[in-house]
């Protein structure tokens, strides 16, 4: 219900916003066309109708999956976006995995031994992860690893392999070397987030009675850490990472521009720069839909992971 309302509100906003920008006729028709030609074009595009009717036409077409054609590529906008989507999703998931691989162990360590120098260093650098401008870090990564050391390629997706009819970079060694740097760049913020969440979670659960009991039973510290503590801190980490997925896809706009990664983000920036309006509208609406779906999925997964939530909603 709420998500439906959001979707309608956003489509109205996007629609009005785009129409407030200017007259599409001036871009589409050559300036030396006479008055009659202009009027014919206006009628053909449905621009003579009152605004609310234009909106209804736009919505009914959108519901049929038609969000207009790109001025630049002369292809349906939705198709253009869907073509680039796998590259963006690949990047987003890659960065999630990197965030977990790096963030969880560091956070765990910082939580178990909070007073060591190493832990303090970890926590201090996590502040950096929050405040560093992502695009600049990306540039520095390129400078060090691509230009100075020459270890990793700086731009593009590299070789791709086809799976389910879609090209993926992570299936080939060359593609993997291409995705490593952008994914790490995109992961920076989330690494800091995971470190902080894990550390807070560990410090909290270590004081719980069941952990004390497990220790008193004489279980080895490794077993206590990984079975009793670890399981319980996974819930908040998974939830927050899930909620971050939408933000990651949105923020890949920046990373994709830095690393010339041919995904949706690069497409939208290029489209904004050449005022390719149908693509802009289509992208924004897709992102809104994506957000609503992600929030829904996270809610569902959360209830599956944490039985307490289920009981609470049943109780009320």
């Amino acid at each position, binding site marked *: 219900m709420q998500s439906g309302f*959001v979707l309608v*509100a956003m489509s109205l906003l*996007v629609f009005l*916003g*785009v129409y*407030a*920008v200017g007259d599409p006729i001036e871009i589409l028709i050559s300036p030396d066309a006479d008055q009659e030609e202009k009027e014919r074009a206006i009628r053909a595009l449905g621009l003579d109708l009152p605004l609310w009717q234009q909106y209804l036409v736009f919505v009914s077409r959108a519901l049929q999956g038609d969000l207009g054609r790109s001025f630049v590529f002369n292809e349906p906008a939705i198709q253009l976006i869907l073509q680039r989507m796998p590259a963006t999703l690949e990047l987003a998931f890659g960065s999630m995995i990197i965030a977990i691989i790096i963030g969880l162990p560091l956070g765990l360590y910082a939580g178990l031994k909070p007073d060591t120098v190493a832990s303090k260093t970890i926590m201090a650098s996590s*502040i*950096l992860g*929050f*405040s*560093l*401008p*992502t*695009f*600049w870090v990306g*540039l*520095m990564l*390129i*400078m060090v690893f*691509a*230009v*100075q050391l020459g270890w990793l390629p*700086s731009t593009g997706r590299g070789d791709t392999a086809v799976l389910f009819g879609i090209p993926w970079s992570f299936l080939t060694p060359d593609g993997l070397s291409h995705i490593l740097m952008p994914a790490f760049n995109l992961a920076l913020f989330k690494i800091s987030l995971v470190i902080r969440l894990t550390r807070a979670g560990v410090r909290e659960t270590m004081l719980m009675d069941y952990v004390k009991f497990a220790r008193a039973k004489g279980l080895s510290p490794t077993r206590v850490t990984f079975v009793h503590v670890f399981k319980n801190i996974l819930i908040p980490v998974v939830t927050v990472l899930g909620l971050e997925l*939408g*933000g990651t896809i*949105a*923020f890949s*706009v*920046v990373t994709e*521009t*830095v690393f010339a990664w041919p995904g949706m983000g690069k497409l*939208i*920036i290029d489209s*904004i*720069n050449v005022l390719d309006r149908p693509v*802009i509208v289509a992208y*924004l609406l897709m*992102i809104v839909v994506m*957000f609503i779906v992600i*929030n829904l999925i996270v809610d569902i997964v959360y209830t599956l992971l944490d039985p307490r939530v289920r009981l609470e909603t049943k109780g009320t």
Partner: protein
Amino acid sequence: MSTTTKTPVVAVETPFRRFVSEFAASKIAMVALAVFVFIALIAIFAPWIAPQNPYDLAVLDIMDGRLEPGAIGGGGYVHWLGTDDQGRDMLSGIMYGLRISLLVGCGSALLACLFGATMGMIAAYAGGKTDSSIMRVVDLQLSFPAILAALMILAFLGKGIMNVVIAIIIVEWAYYARTVRGSALVERNREYMEAARCLALPPRIALFNHLLPNCLPPLIVVGTMQIARAIALEATLSFLGLGVPITEPSLGLLIANGFEYMLSGKYWISFYPGIALLVTIVSINLVGDHLRDVLNPRLKK
């Protein structure tokens, strides 16, 4: 003789003095504050201390383009941080860029604060439907990533410093609104607000003269952090080519300009503006972080 007539100074502990001494207790925060003041001074006095006016095309010499740091250009002075492709002295470019970055960052954060705080207070004071509809908008705004919302607004409005400021205000006001509403809900039921109501003060005076000052501490903390966020957001948008116009480059645009030369090893065009941006943001964040510790009574020992 004069010393005897002087009354001995008694340290009266006013809230402000206590705040200052508590803030000064953290060395890191004091250093960060000093760094930020230094940066702000550079930005303010850039036209007088910069070796070159980077916007004056007459003094730019294309022959001085892409000089390495420390090289001496046609102007006869040392380019300590090198020059960019148009022969612009990077040190001067950074000083002027800081001006724009700080102006946009602080200005938009302040305006967003004004708007957001007003909305938050209205929500808390009015309650009921007004409250829930304002907070519905706030929730919606907060669930949407800042970069996307700003991108959307700039796609509609076009480039320009004013448009960037507007975009940042629209993106950030919700944080202030939520913060102020939270503390205003508590303060609303205090005795002094009851007194204000009994005296039949008009809502405007009750809100701004009595309620707002008591909601300030959390607002200051959020405001400091949001300045840093606004500066970073402006830099990112300018880097993407959607922010400030090319004639008045902010730090983000300077970094973007150097991007294409980075692959050929000419690192300084992007590197030094980035360092300036980094130091600015980190120093503001450190100050904000410590302010939160000082102003939050729950964290006090």
